[in-house]
């Protein structure tokens, strides 16, 4: 379950990175174009741009395993969610609203670290695919000691 205090973080303008793998365990990845928390944190929908996610989607069709990193550019605060994709379909109008809102937030957070709006605005976003993820694990990924540990078990001294 995603704890409620992370809902806003996940749906804000953080960078969303997706990792998958094929049947031979060869990894692939792409940038996602936003995410939405579902079922009070039991699930998550992540939006994959059609233009850049062909390999990732093929992997999901094959084995469903997915890792999603959420990283705030300004301070590298990062978490990673792992799970299985149970539904994959073309994004609809409701999803489009999330994607458009995410793009505005992403532009703001990327601008803070020097990425000009002219790039953010041109980044692939539509058409997109909606991948519903059943959450199985949440991990701290902020660089430094404890990175990779399950959230809440980062073993502070």
């Amino acid at each position, binding site marked *: 379950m995603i704890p409620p205090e992370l809902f806003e973080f996940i749906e804000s303008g953080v960078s969303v*990175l997706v*990792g998958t793998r094929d049947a031979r*365990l060869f*990894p692939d*990845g792409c940038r996602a174009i936003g995410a939405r928390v579902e079922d009070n944190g039991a699930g998550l929908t992540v939006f994959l741009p059609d233009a*850049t996610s062909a390999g990732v989607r093929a992997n999901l069709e094959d084995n469903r395993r997915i890792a999603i*990193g959420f990283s705030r550019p300004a301070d590298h605060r990062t978490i990673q969610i792992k799970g299985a994709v149970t539904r994959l379909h073309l994004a609809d109008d409701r999803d489009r609203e999330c994607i458009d809102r995410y793009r505005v937030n992403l532009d703001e957070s990327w601008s803070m670290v020097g990425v000009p709006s002219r790039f953010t605005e*041109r980044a692939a976003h539509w058409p997109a695919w909606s991948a519903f993820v059943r959450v199985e694990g949440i991990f701290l990924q902020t660089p*430094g000691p404890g990175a*990779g540990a399950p959230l809440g078990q980062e073993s502070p001294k």
Partner: protein
Amino acid sequence: MSGASARLEDLSACFQGIIPAIIATCSADGEPNVTYLSQVYYVDSRHVALSCQFFNKTRRNVDENPYATVLVHHPVDFELWRLRLRFQHCETEGELFERMSMRIQVIASHTGMSGVFRLLSSDVYEVLSVERMEGFLAPAESELDLAPPVSSGPLTELRGVQLVSGRIARAPDLDSLLRGALEALDETLGFSHSMILVPDDRGDRLVTIATRGYGTVGTTAEAMGRADADTRESDVLGADTHSRGGTGAEVTLGGGIGAEVTVGGGIGAEVQVGDGTIGTAAEHRHMIKVTGMGSELRYGRAIRDRIEECGDAEGLSAEIPLPGLPDAQAQLALPLLARDRLVGVIAVESEDPLAFDEWDEAFLQILANQIALGIDRMQDEEEQDSGDGEDAGTKAETEVETKSQSTSTPTAATPVTAPDRSLETHHAFVYYPNDDCVFVDGEYLIRNVPGKILWKLLREFDESGRTEFTNRELRLDESLGLPPVKDNLEARLILLRKRLVARCPGVRLVPVRRGRFALEIDGAITLEEKECGA
């Protein structure tokens, strides 16, 4: 969608750390992992190396399953490139490891994590394919949306090399050599912010003796494109912000020039060997380039925050302010080596993260070698002049003595220009012999060997009215503690001269001819020796 392939060497800009890269890996049991990477290093046309600072999930995955996919952005056009990799081996020593380690050392020292945040290994991967991710960016609607072309070319740089080498060859003295070299770098090559530092007498610090682009005496922050000099001065460790305390004046500026830049062009600013870009280049005697400073520092601070959260803050130290430019995004520091001796460091910086490319590194290395050899030659000639035996020195001293006979003071040399000793201006000098530190009118002026030299000159002037001195007599004065060879005396005198111009323009050291200079003093001076804390 897979896209056009490219040669790895054509993507060098992608590896400068300006935009963080992304790595996807997979464990042996089929669990994918994705995260940001701190450093992707170009090794050769078929290999890259990734930095490993923590034995994290990524590293454990590639130990189990060697395949990885890395996504890198081009920092100019933001296009996304996919590298498919196979882990080969890790290196924990050698040239590759040292080069990658230096870059991390710079960030670690700037963020107060020296010894805490460090490179564990350079993980070398074979590059299986390189392809652009087609469709990541929609076509630009206008030319304005396209990134500006990067201008760089061998003809411009060759002319720069020609000009710099010419100025070095013709320079009559060390000051001219340093000034001419930095001017040429600015005028022909666009390196508008540069500095040269030399080792101090203890060898564990570097002292700035020439700068370009940081203002001059009396220059304010506005001249450097900044609005508030006072703010700047208060938020860095400035030499002139320190008051006299019981342990001596501390003028270390960590990574380079700090507050001092706003008032004196940075002359006299010190860098501890091993600290920041400049100190790291001196310690390793290797060129070091750090680009995307903002991104690197954010990454470093994230790690620092995590270390603090985990209760390990005792190993951390204060964050070191960046060198002169408040928004520097790229820094390049090159050691100046004459044979195996470090004669200084030249550093350039820019607010443009892409200011320095591989070509810049190559020809700056050539120029650095020329400057180093020029400094070495100057020192040889200087010492040869001084050591031209007793004849040259005796002759000079005889001249002085002959002139002095016509003055009212038997032991004094004839002043080159008559000092204005009116009481309208007055400077109070205080010397702290414990650390050879000189203050003027309550403000720190200079220390170490240049401090001792100044005190000697002022005392002789005060006691006998003497105003003309020779380098040779300074070398022969054992109380000054100059080393017997390669004493760097000329560099110390340049530093002293420039510090006086910045801090006390009423007292000047004026070169008379090679190896001889005059002390000019407007108004009156008082001299006092004090113990630390007195």
